[in-house]
């Protein structure tokens, strides 16, 4: 293992994060506050509570997931897409490092950034609502696994994308709708029965449900399913990355 190289990549990526501190750190916090103002005040005044939890608190896990997933994808994809775009990828390809080390550096940094933001949002939300966490360890497990798996997905997108447009298209057209329709701001039990069934095909439902369970001890789907879903998703991303690096797809001609 070339740990020095992993650290070099990791540090390089974290440097960029701190260079764009306002953009990457402050803006999720501000947008979360806006969600609280809009959803908490406007909708919360009509929906008092869901299954014994105040609406303001109920949306916290969903809000964290929304930001964490979006940030993990964008960090993971941009980190590897940018060197491809400006040509500095030559250095990675010619260095004495293997692909596992490259992934560790980039995805490690992307996931850590997403984790930071998740924690920031959690802290911000305590300014608006009272939060108790029923299963803190499981909450952390879900949070970390989400950060890692979606950073991996972002990494795949970054390698796949041939333009900035393609880089944006999957997060914008696929992931964001899935998160919004995945029960971030409502309980699935509030939907008509047909939609409850359809919703179960949305993988994000399992994540948000599991994460919410860690907070309030209640879930839309059994927590075992949630863990299985995220484990399968993580392994799937790892398998795709393994194949990319073996074949050199979109990296080495």
């Amino acid at each position, binding site marked *: 293992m070339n740990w020095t190289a992993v650290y070099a990549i990791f540090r390089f990526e974290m440097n960029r994060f701190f260079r764009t501190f306002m953009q990457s750190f402050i803006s999720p916090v501000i947008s979360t506050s806006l969600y609280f103002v809009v959803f908490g005040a406007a909708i919360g005044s009509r929906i008092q509570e869901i299954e014994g939890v105040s609406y303001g608190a109920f949306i916290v896990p969903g809000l964290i997931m929304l930001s964490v997933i979006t940030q993990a994808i964008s960090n993971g994809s941009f980190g590897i897409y940018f060197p491809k775009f400006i040509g500095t990828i030559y250095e990675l390809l010619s*260095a004495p490092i293997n692909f596992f080390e490259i992934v560790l550096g980039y995805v490690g940094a992307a996931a850590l950034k997403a984790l930071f933001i998740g924690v920031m949002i959690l802290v911000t939300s305590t300014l608006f609502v009272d939060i108790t966490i029923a299963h803190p360890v499981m909450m952390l497990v879900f949070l970390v696994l989400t950060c890692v798996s979606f950073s991996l997905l972002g990494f795949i997108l970054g390698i796949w994308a041939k333009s900035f447009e393609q880089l944006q298209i999957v997060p914008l057209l696929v992931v964001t709708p899935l998160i919004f329709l995945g029960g971030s701001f409502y309980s699935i039990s509030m939907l008509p029965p047909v939609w409850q069934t359809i919703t179960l095909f949305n993988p994000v439902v399992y994540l948000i449900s599991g994460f919410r369970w860690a907070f309030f001890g209640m879930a839309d789907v059994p927590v075992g399913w949630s863990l299985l879903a995220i484990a399968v998703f993580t392994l799937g991303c790892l398998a795709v990355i393994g194949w990319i690096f073996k074949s050199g797809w979109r990296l080495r001609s």
Partner: protein
Amino acid sequence: MAAILSIRDLRKIYDGGFEALKGVTLDIDEGEILALLGPNGAGKTTLISMICGITNPSSGQVTVGGHDISADFRAARKLIGLVPQEVNLEPFEKVRNTVAFSRGLFGKPRNDALIEDLLKKLSLWDKRDNQIRELSGGMKRRVLIAKALSHEPRVLFLDEPTAGVDVELRRDMWNVVDELRATGVTIILTTHYIEEAEAIADRVGVINHGQLLLVEDKATLMRRMGQKQLEIQLDTPLDTLPESLIREGLEMGAEGSSLIYTYDTKGERTGITALLTDMQAAGLKLRDVQTKQSSLEDIFVGLVKGDAA
């Protein structure tokens, strides 16, 4: 001296079926400077990219310091530094950080003194805390060199280091190469400036259409292929060449005021003595005499043309 870089029958066929490299075999000795000359699209960059790990070879074998570039890629790549043709740099990174990053990427522990020394040698020390986007084009090229040297490679590839660079920077670059030569670093540079190869290389390889046409010691190459010209300025211009002087290689210069005699330096007889004797016999008076060695450029153009034919 032992070969530090050994290339055996290296081929590259791209997906579209284009054969960019058609079986190149080459040994490069430790400490030597080899210039690879060839027109655009000859396969120079493909060759370098395969050795450095940026492109996968279709077949063939390469070892660097005895380490196979695919089976033992870590050991092989640690010995290699690459200065790419394109100026590819992270625009928002600081000079010092990007050079330190390269060193880390190659698994070497942090060494601020070495990087300071490197930046000073390349006249980049004053710019160490500048973002790369603030630098001039020439400075950016120096940063690329600093990055390539940051992990103390034993073999350095310079892919057209002076393409589009002004004369002053080109001289600077040659000085850098000279200093590196003194430390025993092996250098392979590609160029289409023949004067560059002539100025700094020990050996010259000519590559075209994916084939290595020849690799020769620079001096030998020039001697082997080299012809010389003897130009004789006459006191009185001639209308026609006297019959006694007609021979192979002799032509009249512009307006008959000179005679140009082309001869082979390696030939058993150059024919110069005979020519001068005959000129005296014909009563011609000389005003001035000069000889010219054919340049590497003439040799190169001759080879590439011959290859195309």
